[in-house]
């Protein structure tokens, strides 16, 4: 009997760590898979909403990945998308309600965007591609990894958009007042959605420059 007991994989084995590390760079949901672009455009005009949204996505993604992974053997394939949606939607509503009850100011700022997490294709994508066929622990790590990959890009984009568009970081003025006297102006275009897309484009460019694996062979 004892010979049949499989050796347990350590919780943070190399394979499991890959689940967290890969989505941050090699298979980043935004810059490589180009998913979840809509929210990356919508909430990144200011840094604060971007950070809170990243955290909310992290929570929703980790929990729904685990839930779907636990349920995976019972979910009838014909209605699996509906089941995934119900799980995500319930989680999102819970997060929204908790934000409203305990951090009202932040929830006021994020307003509709929390609800829009439901439409974030990354979450559905990971449930369908990973959680449906993996055990809860790897699914949890995969959720965290992808949410981090998403959040990092969001925060980088928001940092530059707020800095160049409003001259502030987290609503604190960082461009010295003196600059404005010499004719420096905040770039209003940075606040508009097109510049978010261009900023993401620049990040993809920089990422590919440093990560040769991402460049197609021909």
């Amino acid at each position, binding site marked *: 009997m004892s010979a049949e007991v499989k050796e347990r994989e350590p919780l943070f084995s190399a394979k499991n760590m890959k689940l967290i590390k890969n989505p941050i760079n090699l298979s980043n949901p935004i810059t490589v898979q180009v998913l979840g672009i809509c929210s990356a455009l919508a909430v990144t005009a200011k840094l604060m909403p971007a950070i809170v949204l990243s955290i909310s996505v992290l929570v929703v993604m980790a929990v729904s990945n685990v839930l779907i992974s636990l349920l995976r053997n019972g979910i009838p394939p*014909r*209605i699996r998308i509906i089941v995934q949606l119900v*799980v995500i939607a319930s989680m999102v509503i819970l997060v929204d309600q*908790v934000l*409203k*009850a305990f951090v009202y100011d932040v929830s006021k700022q994020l*307003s*509709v965007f929390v609800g829009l997490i439901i439409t974030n294709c990354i979450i559905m994508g990971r449930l369908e591609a990973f959680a449906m066929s993996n055990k809860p622990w790897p699914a949890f790590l995969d959720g965290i990894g992808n949410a981090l990959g998403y959040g990092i890009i969001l925060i980088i984009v928001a940092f530059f958009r707020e800095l160049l568009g409003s001259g502030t970081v987290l609503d604190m003025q960082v461009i010295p007042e003196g600059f404005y006297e010499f004719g420096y102006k905040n770039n209003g275009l940075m606040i*508009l959605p097109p510049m978010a897309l261009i900023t993401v484009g620049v990040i993809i460019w920089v990422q590919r420059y440093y990560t040769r694996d991402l460049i197609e062979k021909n």
Partner: protein
Amino acid sequence: MYTNGYIFRYAAIMVIIAAALLSTAAMLLKPFQERNIAIDKMGGILVSANIQDVDATNAMKLFNEYVSEEIVIDQDGKVVDSYTDGKKEDGKAFKLDMKKELYKKSQGEPYELPLYVIEKDNKKLYVIPFRGVGLWGPIWGNMALNDDLNTVVGVTFAHKGETPGLGAEIVADFFTKQFIGKQIFNDKNEFKSIQVVKGGADKLPPNERIHGVDAITGGTITCNGVNDMIYDILDSYLPYLQKNR
């Protein structure tokens, strides 16, 4: 193989569990949320009257301290309720649902509106709450008028989901500060409201500039919403304002 029966049962149970979970959470969290909303409303009223250092922790205390009277007026500007004692959050005016009252107005039915009197430095300020529509959803706010019921002491705005960095900037100081000192009536005692002017209040003729502020670049539709909201609400309060000036 999953039978149809299994699929139906699975879906039914899943939906019931989700519904039970969400309604429980909503019920448990509701008192906290309502308290937050009430505190937010009080904060807005206080900030519009230029009361300093208002935050979520002291809003309720300061509200009870500064608000001396809560008035409810009807469509003809008649005072139907005046509440001066006790806890200010229990007053009829504070509990009045602006949205419902404005709906009644749009239907041509009789309606009631709240008005808050704040006593600050031995002067009476009158705070009018606003409600209107922006680009994506409702916008609301408060305007504090001097005791001449003409000069603006301060305003606050808030919104449900205007675009961050653009329309959402109506809450920012640079926008709301412009309203201070503006007047809603002209010398001839005609109602002028306060216009939010695209391209800047400088576009108005010089004698009208006291009734105008600059709109926000990229936030035109939200600013138009603010403009219409100010006009509509002040217009609803007009009978009262004119009677008491």
